[in-house]
């Protein structure tokens, strides 16, 4: 009896040896997984149970695993930001290889499904992108994963694709951006709305559209915005104000090439009043019939222009301390 048992064991061991000589996990296993447990197209959702199987050492395929924590309770902002980019890469690959992965698979292991794996890997942060290359076949490499650096990368999908291309020979990934139908829908709706608007509302609003004052107002606001550094704020995302070293608030950024949101608004208002002063002096006051009132109006506007221009140069000297010109009263 013992011998039989032993023989059976030996046979089983032999059999196991024979089997493991050929790769234990091959692409067919992954293709099955791809069919059974993909959430998004081309993306396998892993759990603690099958994670070990997927990455187990003799493998003839490459698999990219995103170890992430997307559930809102984890509060991982970057995970949720990164997910769509990763999905896009997986989707683009599956679009060119619809039936099977053809040796490259995309998988995702969320912390919710894989707490034990996270612990055993000693992972404390998420998201992580790990690439397990093939260990058998012509492109065989080490069994250990290669880590992709997520931080500080622009153009995420493209950079992920390049990362994979550079580590898995013979793979070329073209990113297919899915057509955003909602945008087309918005455009069509917008066009229809504009059409209806013109058809029914234009006769009512026509005086507005033909109002010179309205257009002049729009033009002046646009010009004042642009010339007071609005585009700089927009592009650089400048803070409105900033704290200084003494713990207070500084409203004016030091340096000629810097600015805060607040100071640009101050400058825009200064420009606006100065421009209004010039407009009033040239268009308004010479049309006042009463001489006393006219003189008063001229005096008022001249004073306003004088003081505000002085203030403007004062602000400018804060940016450029070497600037020599100034007007009273703000000469310091």
């Amino acid at each position, binding site marked *: 009896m013992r011998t039989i048992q032993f023989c059976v064991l030996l046979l089983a061991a032999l059999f196991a040896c024979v089997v493991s000589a050929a790769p234990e996990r091959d692409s067919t296993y992954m293709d099955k997984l791809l069919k059974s447990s993909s959430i998004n197209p081309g993306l396998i959702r892993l759990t603690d149970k099958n994670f070990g199987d997927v990455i187990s050492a003799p493998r003839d395929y490459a698999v990219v695993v995103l170890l992430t924590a997307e559930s809102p309770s984890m509060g991982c902002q970057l995970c949720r930001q990164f997910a769509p980019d990763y999905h896009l890469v997986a989707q683009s690959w599956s679009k060119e290889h619809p039936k099977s992965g053809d040796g490259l698979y995309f998988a995702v292991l969320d912390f919710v499904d894989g707490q034990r794996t996270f612990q055993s890997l000693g992972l404390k942060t998420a998201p992580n992108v790990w690439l397990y290359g093939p260990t058998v076949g012509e492109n065989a490499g080490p069994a250990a994963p290669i880590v992709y*650096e997520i931080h500080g990368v622009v153009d995420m999908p493209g950079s992920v694709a390049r990362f994979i291309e550079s580590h898995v020979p013979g793979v070329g990934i073209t990113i297919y951006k899915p057509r955003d139908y909602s945008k087309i829908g918005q455009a069509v709706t917008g066009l229809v709305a504009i059409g209806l608007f013109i058809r029914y509302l234009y006769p009512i609003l026509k005086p507005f559209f033909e109002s010179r004052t309205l257009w002049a107002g729009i033009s002046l606001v*646009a010009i004042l915005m642009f010339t007071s550094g609005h585009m700089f704020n927009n592009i650089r995302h400048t803070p409105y104000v900033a704290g200084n070293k003494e713990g207070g608030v500084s409203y004016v950024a030091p340096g000629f090439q810097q600015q805060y949101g607040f100071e640009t608004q101050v400058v825009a208002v200064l420009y*606006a009043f100065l*421009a209004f002063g010039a407009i009033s002096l040239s268009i308004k006051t010479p049309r006042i019939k*009463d001489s006393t009132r006219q003189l008063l109006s001229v005096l008022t506007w001249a004073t306003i222009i004088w003081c505000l221009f002085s203030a403007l140069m004062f602000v400018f000297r804060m940016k450029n301390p070497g600037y020599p010109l100034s007007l009273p009263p703000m000469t310091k």
Partner: protein
Amino acid sequence: MQLPTSLPPAAANALPLLRTLTLFTIAGAAIASRLFSVVRFESIIHEFDPWFNFRATKYLVANDFYSFLDWFDDRTWYPLGRVTGGTLYPGLMVTSALIFHGLKALTLPVDIRNICVMLAPVFSGLTAYATYLFTREMKDHSAGLLAAAFIGIAPGYISRSVAGSYDNEAIAITLLMFTFYLWIKALKLGSAFWGALTALFYFYMVAAWGGYVFITNIIPLHALVLVIMGRYSSRLYVAYSSWYALGTLASMQIPFVGFLPIRSSEHMGALGVFGLLQLVGFAVYVRARVPSKQFKVLVVGSVGALVVLGVAGIVGLTVSGVIAPWTGRFYSLWDTGYAKIHIPIIASVSEHQPTAWPSFFFDTFMLIWLFPAGVYVVFQELRDEHLFVIIYGILASYFAGVMVRLMLTLTPIVCVCGAVALSNILDIYTNLEKPVEEEEEKKEEKEEASPLKKATTSLIEDEASILSLGSMSKKPLIGVYSNWARGIVLGMFTLYLYMFVQHCTWVTSNAYSSPSVVLASQMADGSQHIIDDFREAYYWLRKNTAEDAKVMSWWDYGYQIGGMADRTTLVDNNTWNNTHIATVGKAMSSREEVSYPILRKHDVDYILVIFGGLLGYSGDDINKFLWMVRIAEGIWPEEVKERDFFTARGEYRVDAEATPTMKNSLMYKMSYYRFADVFGRQPAIDRVRNQRIPSPMQDASAAPIELSSVEEAFTSENWIVRIYKVKELDPFGREHAAATAFESGKKKSGARGRTAPVGGHAKGRARVLRV
């Protein structure tokens, strides 16, 4: 609306003469204020791009025009070379060459360098004249003269046109203003002759500057707005059609432009408006001949079908790739986040950064707030040409906000609008005619009790209605009663004009007159000290290296090396090949063992780096280093990583805490090689970054920086330029690092009599170290 003039008729006759004199004076002032750099330094070409233009001009003067157009330059972008004749705007060089040959024919031989240096100031005088003509069309002579004076000395324009700033913009702004003036004239007269002249100057502009696209889009936009506002006229039709047809055909003669005007999206607007004008013109023609009911059917049917066909055609051509997509630089104007992601080279250029508000004030002084006032004033009258000013003003201020260098296109319109606003004020307050107060007597009877109080209250009412200025302008213009009011307003604006001149002179003198090839610094006693390291180093290259030596440097210095040292460069300021630039970036930012094969493959003989640490010159290569890393990372994201150059705390350090990647990079080593030796036992301070470079004499643990595959060949007086020679392969086939270690080990063991084997080239003669 015009007030009666207070000018005596005899004076009126002398006005044209006075105007001419004034214009000449303005041109003189414009030229004179641009000569600071010539007076202070010498007649020298400035900065970077002008050196290429200068080199190309010399080529054109030495050869004929056709060989210039066919010029293949094998001394840049080694080993690729550059089809220079086909990839430049020849307008500037041809202008200089024509002046050169013209003067020679007049038996006035002037050195071509002096022509190139003085070209920009002279053209700025012409710009003043063009601006005068343009503004005269908007308002009158006096506004024109004011605008000419403004543009003559406005810093925003001077920044690109000081003597020695031999760049495309130097003549382009002149051409821009002439083209706009001619377009307005053509539109006013509806004349095909003036339209053709517009096309001629447009052609000149296309030949001179890539910014011609601004004209290509603003004139169609003007025409489109006129059509939408129902201001279509046969004048518009004639002016636009003649300009577009002739101008487009002419612009296609420039090799660099070629078929772009019918293929690239930037030019599609002009084509579309041309088509639209044909449709509108046709519709107007038919309406005059067909009864109105049938006309409606006809219009709805045919115009609708044509529009659908046109749109479908353009979309189809774009999709199928016949029409090229937007070029990067232009695209980055609209989608402001685009450049940063896709084209780091464009984002790296400082003149492509957005503009902070101080620059606007700095470049135009009070004109920046007179500008909106001027736009408002032209809104009052709103003739066809006034629309042009408004469109130009809004577009140019947007562009100037997105890119610093486009301040240049904003400045002319700021000057025009400022002049219109100011001359409007001056017109009114210099008019000495006293208006008759009609209701004065009646009022005085009524309001004797408290005239002042009454006046104040009604004044406040007036101020409250400030936003309804539009209604104000409908009231009749009366004039100014009080001489006090005249005196105050005129006095105030005279003071401002005086300050404007002061401001412009100060800005020009302090900010825009540095050649940047030669630096000036103040000594302790206030005297000027000239720092001439660049020319010293380039001259050394010219005299001490083989004529076909290849010099690698960051692309900023490519044109200067080509122009001053006359040596072959790998990359230069014409940044057409990103990969090649990234190769240089990779060589600079990698370890020596990685860089050396790259250097060998590109036949590099010398490497030139700019180092400001000793002197405190902040525009050096270490400060630009991150861009080299970023651009290299764009091509080899696995081999070069920006993150590795920052410390764990995310700081960019060069001192003892610098990351190993930083310390081992070729650029770092070449910059700080032997730097600590200068200071002896003192701490070695980098004066740009205010950090302490590890010095072996101070700190035993700090190893001196060692270079094995390159050797120091030359370092300039103030260390700004350092040149290294790339070693040949080791004769015994060793690694360079091993060979260096072997040699230094030998020296230590006392074998002094033997000279160390060198890789087949003379060494030592070149080392000029003055510390």
